[in-house]
């Protein structure tokens, strides 16, 4: 009888260890992250930033001198655009190749480690693979970095570009209305604040101000936020994603569902 008991336990234990790996295998292990601040301290980035700062200072002087010759607002706008363009060109010229090399390094490391997505360190609080040192090592090398031969594997983490969603007409309109409301409300409550005599009065004014903003936010923005969330969830589900993060936190890979969300949201 004793033998039977031991057998039962052993069978169950074996069963648990046989079944478990299959489930564990489905776990998300292909998420990498980078400490972008550490990468930014590399001499190549520091030198590029210093060079850009020098160019900017020089352009600022030229810009101010050019402004003195402006006759009207149109002139000033034209001059401002011209100098912005010039700075952007310089930026592309100086930083562009370094960013391309960094992108290659990240893609190469991600391919070596079979990562489907590499994100910013700030959003990973536990686990994941820290590839910062690998990327830094690749960037420190003088040799050319070969591009990975394969595209990243399909990721279970998706992302949306919030700036694209924010630029949709109805979202933009709501944001504009909210900004205007906030400005108006600020003017009203600033006058009340100036007349407030005690700390209690000031707290009451601040509470009123915050409440007015929160109420208006509920009216103008919340319905849109809810709709976006719903659309994002629908798309994510259809694409078998687990989580969706913001485009700004993604450094490499991931599944871009911005267009699908935009379409679903527009319906």
């Amino acid at each position, binding site marked *: 009888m004793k033998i039977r008991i031991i057998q039962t336990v052993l069978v169950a*234990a074996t069963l648990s260890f046989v079944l478990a790996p299959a489930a564990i295998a489905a776990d998300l292990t292909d*998420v990498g992250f980078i400490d972008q601040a550490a990468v930014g301290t590399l001499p190549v980035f520091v030198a590029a930033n210093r060079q850009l700062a020098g160019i900017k200072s020089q352009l600022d002087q030229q810009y101010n001198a050019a402004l003195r010759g402006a006759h009207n607002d149109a002139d000033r706008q034209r001059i401002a655009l011209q100098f912005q363009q010039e700075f952007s060109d310089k930026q592309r010229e100086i930083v562009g190749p370094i960013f391309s090399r960094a992108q290659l390094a990240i893609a190469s490391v991600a391919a070596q480690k079979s990562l489907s997505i590499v994100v910013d360190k700030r959003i990973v609080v536990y686990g994941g693979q820290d590839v910062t040192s690998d990327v830094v090592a690749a960037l420190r090398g003088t040799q050319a970095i070969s591009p990975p031969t394969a595209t990243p594997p399909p990721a279970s983490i998706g992302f949306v570009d919030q700036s694209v969603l924010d630029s949709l007409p109805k979202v933009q309109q709501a944001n504009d209305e909210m900004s205007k409301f906030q400005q108006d409300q600020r003017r009203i409550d600033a006058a009340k604040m100036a007349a407030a005599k005690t700390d209690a009065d*000031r707290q009451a004014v601040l509470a009123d101000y915050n409440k007015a903003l929160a109420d208006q936010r509920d009216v103008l923005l919340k319905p849109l936020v809810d709709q976006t969330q719903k659309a994002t969830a629908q798309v994510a589900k259809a694409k078998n994603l687990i989580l969706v993060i913001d485009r700004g936190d993604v450094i490499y890979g991931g599944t871009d569902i911005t267009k699908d969300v935009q379409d679903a949201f527009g319906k």
Partner: protein
Amino acid sequence: MSKMRSANRAALALALVLAASGLAGCGQVDVHSPQVRGTGYFRMEDVIKHHPLYAQVAQLTDAIDTIGLVASAPQAPKTAAEIAEATAELNRSLRDAQNRTNAIIAQDQQEYAAKERAAMAAALRAAGQTQAANALAGQVGSTSTQQAAQIAAQANQNFMQYQQSVIAQNNQASASISQQLQIEADRQLRARAEQYQQSETDLSFQLSQQNASERLALKTKLSNLALDDAGRAQLESQLNALQQKQNDAELALHNRNEAALAQYRAQLRAQTGAAIAARVGDVQAQTRSQLESRRNEVGAQLRDLGPSQVEPSVSPAVRQQMQQIHQRFAAAFQTDAQKAVSDYQAVKADLDRQYAALHGADVGATGAAAQQLASLERRRDVLTKQMQTQIVAEANRIAKQQGFQVVFINVNTAVGGYDMTDELTKDIEGLHQ
């Protein structure tokens, strides 16, 4: 037989537990299920609201928002444009005073000239040139006594106006200096109060961290359902004692800070009173000096610079003497006139400096607000960082315990994974209860 059945049941139960643990990795969450896939996430902004120190962050945020709202009030701070306008007004007043002085100079020139002619006539008479002396005396007689009285009356009236305007300006300067010193004292008091509040926050945080493991251990023991009443009471008593000890330490520091703050308030009040008295005394002394100087100046002024006409028959030696008399009076007038202008410029500069000081004090007040804002934001950032670090440490502990592969924050939308927010919230609340 019964024993054997019981052993069988125990074995089966143990087997099921083992199987379940292998499948789930955790009794509460099926971390490795297809829906979760070893992935956790939480909403930091929600969890942090349940941190015991969040109330202080909320207070700091309110203070920051209040400063922002006060700053956007149109009449609250003096803008650079308002200060420039006030300075321009002062300059206008000074220009008016200058014009009045110029008018006095012009009117008194005749009197000055009369004195010069009288001196020349006396010299001519002494040289036996009576005819020429009489001719000059005739020029002197052209200035009537009535005209001289009118000029003196005008000069007095102008001086009175000048006196009133200088006193009004200096009163305004004194009031502003007093106000600015009070504002500065308030700022210093607020800064000290914040410093004390920060020390209390730090202590609270430090103690809660120090006691966290002991508290957690006691709470874990308390969560044991099989614990008898006596054991439970003992553990609860230990937990309460721990909390009481922390409360006592916090209260003691708070009381010490309150006493120190009261002492500092009294010290500031005395210092501010003395500083106001000294600065206002300086301004008043300056006002008296300005008025005295102007009074002397008006009393001493002015004479006609035009050279008196001397007849051609006068000898070259006497003519040279006449020239010397004229040069002496002209030089004296120029010195006086230059002194008058310099004094006015000095008065203007003094009052400009006072306004500049006001401007500076106001900028300082705005700067003080900016400094206070920066200090509040820094404190909020530090406190938020401390809370986030503690939350992340707890999230790590839970994630490790339950076998997660990866845990995210700042998730936009989740259709899978495990939301740790509630569990983490309870955990964070529990750490400080």
